[in-house]
């Protein structure tokens, strides 16, 4: 009886967790856009614009390329769902993840990988040059980011002694924010997430110039619902990455449900602020840097990988285990 209750509560909490991410994702997107507008000294769109875009797209008629097959329609759904699967292992404002268990940091990376697989495949669906180009570049970036991301997370896992993201977050609380390996990991992960989010200097999210675009290239054929789902998935992913970073930067303020509603709200607000700050930071980066050439990316991501490895080495040095 009571364990079925347990299950039920767990399920509800999980749904809430998802809902939170779903709701917050476009907001973050809007916030980043506005902060970019701020740096560009212009009157940006309202912070709620992403919601409107999504609604508009959802209601639009959908155009499908004549060369496309059923995969074309499958991709956006898979992309969104897989991103949500990733969301299920990301600790939320309260440092709680519904599906946490050891090794789920690999699950996080792999889910994003699944998204990549499908989106690159459907990039080829349209039989157009742009799609193929997008896919090709995306694959390239992807295979470079994956090691960096994984190594960074692994080092955190070593610091905290667990491979579950939730455990890591709670473990990091007790560790000083200026613990050197941690800082190095931070650098690594920040660089990685820039690549993952498809932002300058890796990719330019708001251009459709064939020379520059990577991610948009694959989406070129999409419209209506599917496009909505895809961009929504993109936004969720962005939020996930920021959450991850946020919990690493300063995972304090995880106030468990025991502190009552106020506590919960406070934690939520705190997390929100952290994410917002990070978002602003990325906006800043994006406004102050330029996009690099594709073949300069290896060096860029190599840097982040190196940072991760350095973090590893330094960790063992500090612990005096080498």
């Amino acid at each position: 009886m009571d364990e079925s209750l347990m299950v039920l509560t767990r399920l509800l909490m999980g749904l809430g967790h998802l809902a939170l991410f779903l709701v917050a994702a476009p907001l973050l997107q809007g916030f980043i856009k506005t902060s970019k507008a701020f740096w560009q000294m212009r009157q940006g769109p309202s912070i709620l614009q992403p919601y409107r875009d999504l609604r508009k797209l959802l209601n639009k008629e959908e155009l499908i390329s004549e060369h496309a097959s059923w995969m074309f329609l499958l991709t956006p759904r898979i992309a969104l769902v897989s991103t949500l699967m990733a969301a299920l292992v990301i600790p939320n404002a309260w440092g709680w993840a519904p599906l946490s268990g050891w090794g789920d940091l690999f699950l996080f990376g792999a889910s994003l990988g699944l998204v990549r697989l499908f989106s690159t495949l459907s990039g080829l669906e349209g039989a157009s040059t742009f799609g193929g180009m997008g896919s090709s570049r995306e694959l390239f970036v992807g295979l470079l980011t994956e090691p960096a991301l994984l190594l960074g997370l692994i080092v955190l896992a070593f610091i905290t002694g667990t491979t579950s993201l939730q455990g890591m977050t709670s473990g990091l609380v007790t560790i000083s924010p200026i613990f050197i390996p941690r800082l190095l990991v931070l650098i690594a992960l920040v660089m990685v997430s820039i690549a993952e989010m498809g932002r300058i200097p890796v990719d330019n999210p708001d251009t459709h110039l064939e020379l520059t675009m990577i991610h948009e290239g694959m989406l070129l054929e999409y419209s209506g619902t599917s496009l909505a789902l895809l961009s929504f998935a993109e936004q969720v992913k962005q939020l996930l990455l920021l959450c991850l970073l946020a919990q690493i930067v300063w995972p304090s303020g995880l106030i468990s449900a025991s502190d009552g509603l106020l506590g919960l709200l406070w934690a939520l607000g705190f997390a929100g602020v952290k994410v917002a700050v990070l978002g602003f930071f990325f906006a800043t980066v994006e406004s102050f840097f330029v996009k690099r050439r594709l073949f300069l990316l290896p060096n860029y991501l190599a840097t982040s990988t190196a940072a991760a490895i350095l973090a590893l080495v330094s960790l063992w040095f500090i612990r005096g285990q080498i």
Partner: protein
Amino acid sequence: MFSKGSRSIRQLLMSLSIGLAVVGLILGTVLTFLGGEWHKTGLHFFTEAGAGISLTWKLDGLTAFFLCILLLGQSFSSLYALGYLQEYEEKKKPLRSFYVSWFLFLGSMFGVLLADDGFTFLLTWEMMSLFSFFLVLYEHEDLQNRKAAYIYLIMTHVGTVFLTAAVLYLYAMSGSFAFEVWAKAAPTLTIIQLNLLFIAFFIGLGTKAGFVPFHIWLPYAHSAAPSPVSSLMSGVMVKVALYLFIRLVWLTLGPGPVWWGWLFLAIGALSALIGILYASVQSDIKKLLAFSTIENVGILGMALGSAFLARSWHNAWAMDLALLAFFWHTLQHMLFKSMLFMGAGNIIQATHTRNLERLGGLLKRMPKTGLGALIGIIGITALPQLGGFWGELLLFQSLWVNTSQLLNGWSKVVLPLFIGLLALVGGLSIATFVKWFGISFLGQARSLVAEKAKEAHPVQVITPLIMSGLAVLSVLWPAGTLALINLPLLVMRDGETLGIGSVIGKPIHMTSVYLMIFSLLLLTVVILSKRKARRVTPTWNCGSPLTPSMQYSATGLTKPIRILFAKVLGSHRQVDRNFEGTPYSLHSLNYEGEIKAVFEDIFYRPLIRGLLWVATQIRKLQEGNIHLYLGYLLITMIVVLILAR
């Protein structure tokens, strides 16, 4: 068209093969559930071979697991062959030799798995190589295939030289061929002897398994063979070699020094990286798969290495994880790689080309084949929620545990790097299979043959789907899979007896949960996003009409990889443009790009050249001059007289 007789023969024989496999599976299951100590101690039986030698066989948990793999592979490949062979009949190509070698090949694989002494092992092992060689040779009209078969047999034979040497050495040391006796004798050997034996086994078995740098035969052979055979070779035969690593090294030579584990890990990583790199730049659908086999063998090798390390560091948890990863991945890879080879087989029969550049848009024409292939690539790229992913997760975890349990030492830095490398391999494999699937199935047909492609014989499309069903089942019911994996673990774990359940945390048991949640979410999303208004339009191409040649080519898709790893691949390109007078109008452009087979150039060509040189020198001895011959005689006489004084 073709004779009724041959058809009925085909159906008879192949269903016989399937039947045997199914019966075997059922028997195995019954035996397993009857329980008893047999999977720990083993069931012994033997056949008399005269002259005091008798072939001894043993069935224990380890063997049982691999037998299960073999039987699955056999049943599915036979089912597939049932459809696939029809084409040969239509071409009036006699199938006698195929059937004979088919059954003998399967039989000898059983033999290798069951063999319990060195003599039996060598006998069956050689026969396995031999009959697989005949199968590879089946399409001998093509010179390339003959070359492939030749390289294959020679390579395995060289491998066998090392095996034979090791076996005979152990025989000389222990005075018996039986594995048990060896296991008893092993501790008495000096460390140098052990190391030598290990190296011999490593080279011998590694050649068969396809470890870099002994892998060169594998891409040729696996792509030259008919698809059912390729799926057997990639799915099962390679695993047999790995089985022997466990049987002969893990169980017989014992723990051994730490560097064995490191060697496995390093060679495994090398194979994985090289394999997937070469796969990513292939344009031949079967070669690509073959190279990816090398990659997966590498991953399995890494798992084995991690297990060896954990064993020598007495780290039970990491060892269990690694072994679990090993067996899990063995099973999954068998399923997925066979599926992919079958998909490739369908494509080849439909289009009669293996060149990606001439395919495209097949998903519309062969949807069922496409579905199977899609599931296949999700599995083989180790992405959630299929089994492939969980295997790698376990491997990651075991490496991680290994590292964190270590007290100190540089290993703590090196081991995690392997995790990073594995991640890189994962990324590359995604790229590879996006290329494989995307170029062949998606977009526009790049040639007339692809245009005309028809869906294959129903059996050939059903088989992969059944296999994918099995793959899903293995994830949906992890308890069953784990029970299967528990069999070999019982044999391999020395000492402690806690079941896997206790050491393994929950994720691996929750695979089903993950899968269900995933499919639920997918369902909801699909339902929610039901849209009525859809319109099919031409692809937007800046207003100009879209031609197939405008799509990204297979070569183009992975070009960044080719450029990034140019050093490793030894890839180079040559473009010569021909301008008509003015530099503004390009008259013609000729592009040549090639990938060097670096290892052949570094290792094998010089070796062979040297050998032939020596041979020509020797031949000079016999140059037709009788006086010279008499001279040999005299000199021999004198030398003997002088030396033997």
